């Protein structure tokens, strides 16, 4: 059980591809139909000014069928998931959720996962948490560990094998 199984969902690529296409055509035909391009999502988007993410354009491009282009685009990875677009959309289109779906599909179709996500996944697989307990530095530069602070042991899955088994079963499920 490794990262590849989890991210490719253990499916053969052909079957996976049709699954993804089905999901995407749902995005295209159902969700984006409601969007009337008011731009409210983009005007409040936290990633807009800094990274040029334009949620309303992504919805419009999906509607035009530019699905592969979106899945393969780096711009979908600039969303900070602040949920402002979902909150403010008068049509309940929720671009942030569309972006989550696009990113999931990019990962499932075998595109390289950007940045530290692979390490984070690997860590969840092996110890159940995003990262293991760290030593920290105080304001006057002393190094301190969790146990120095009299905090109890960190809660983690008690039976890692069973925990990993559950995750690997999940991996065989669809996105």
């Amino acid at each position, binding site marked *: 059980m490794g990262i590849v199984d*989890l*991210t490719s969902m253990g499916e053969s690529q052909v079957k996976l591809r049709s699954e993804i296409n089905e999901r995407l055509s749902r995005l295209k035909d159902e969700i984006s139909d409601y969007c009337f391009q008011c731009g409210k999502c983009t005007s409040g988007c*936290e*990633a807009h000014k*800094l*990274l040029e993410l334009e949620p309303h354009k992504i919805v419009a491009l999906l509607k035009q069928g530019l699905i592969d282009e979106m899945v393969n685009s780096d711009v979908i*990875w*600039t969303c*900070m*998931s*602040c*949920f*402002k677009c*979902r*909150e403010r959309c008068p049509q309940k289109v*929720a671009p942030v959720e569309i972006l*989550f*779906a696009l*990113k*999931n599909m990019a*990962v*499932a179709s075998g595109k390289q*996962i*950007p*940045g*530290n*996500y692979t390490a*984070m*996944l690997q860590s*969840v697989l092996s110890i*159940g*948490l*995003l*990262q*293991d*307990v*760290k030593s*920290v*530095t*105080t*304001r*006057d530069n002393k190094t*301190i560990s*969790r146990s120095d602070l009299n*905090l109890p042991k*960190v*809660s*983690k*899955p*008690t*039976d890692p094998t*069973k*925990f990993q088994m*559950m*995750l690997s*079963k*999940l991996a065989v*499920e*669809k*996105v």
Partner: protein
Amino acid sequence: MKKYVLYPGCVMPTEQYAYEMSIREVLPLLNIKLVDLEGFSCCGEPIKSVNQMLSLALSARNIALAEKEGLDIFAPCPMCHLALSESKRILDSELGMNEKINKFLADEGLSYTGKVDIVNTLDLLHDIVGVDKIKELVKKPLKELKVATHYGCHLIRPSEIGRPDDSENPQKMEKILEAIGAKPLDYPEKLDCCGGLLTANLPDSALTKTGQKLQKVQEQGFDAFIDICPWCHRQYDSKQTKAGEIVAAKLEVPVFYLTQLLGISFGISKDKLGLDLNLSPVDKLNLGGK
């Protein structure tokens, strides 16, 4: 005395110790008993971009662990609180998904039934404990300390899932801070995001967001910046110097967890609140004492 299972998540118990310490000090004084439980994992929210199904199942598993104890869940991290709440919402409303997820959980002898509640620090303090009770415990009021609040995106949005405060005009932190003598003031950037979730793939952009907000807070003359999320605090406090370098500004904004400030006003010693672990210049306010 009301009992909760403490669901610590990942970031708080592995590096943001000050949040955990101040929670463990402050809540018992307010008649809240926290129960530690073995076996929890990540809530899944930080890796939702990679696989949403995984996120849903991890959250369901964590809820199921608490259900076994028959206790409600206290999730101090807003991101965990959102993941658990969203998972609960989906499993309570979609029978098919509920059955599917429960099949996975059965391997570990767990099952999700949907009978426990999930609270965060904010609703626990404001709605369950109440501002009046907090007021009673104040020994050292924070005399007119001008504070800017930062709620964190996941704590207030999406409101459809049910969040502890209003999505566009949250005020519960303000109410709590007023109760301990501080003076919270509104500012235009209050709802701006810390950028923390971009740390995974665009770390410099994440810090730009952090630095830009702190710069505005500093310009407006606030004494302190108060947050309630371990991800946000990691950006605003732990990485403040780095954020300042990225936006080319000398940032000197004292940043506290809300629970640390409560502890100070209740007369709890600095050591017990993990105040030494704040890397922002909190000393300049001369709060607390040993």
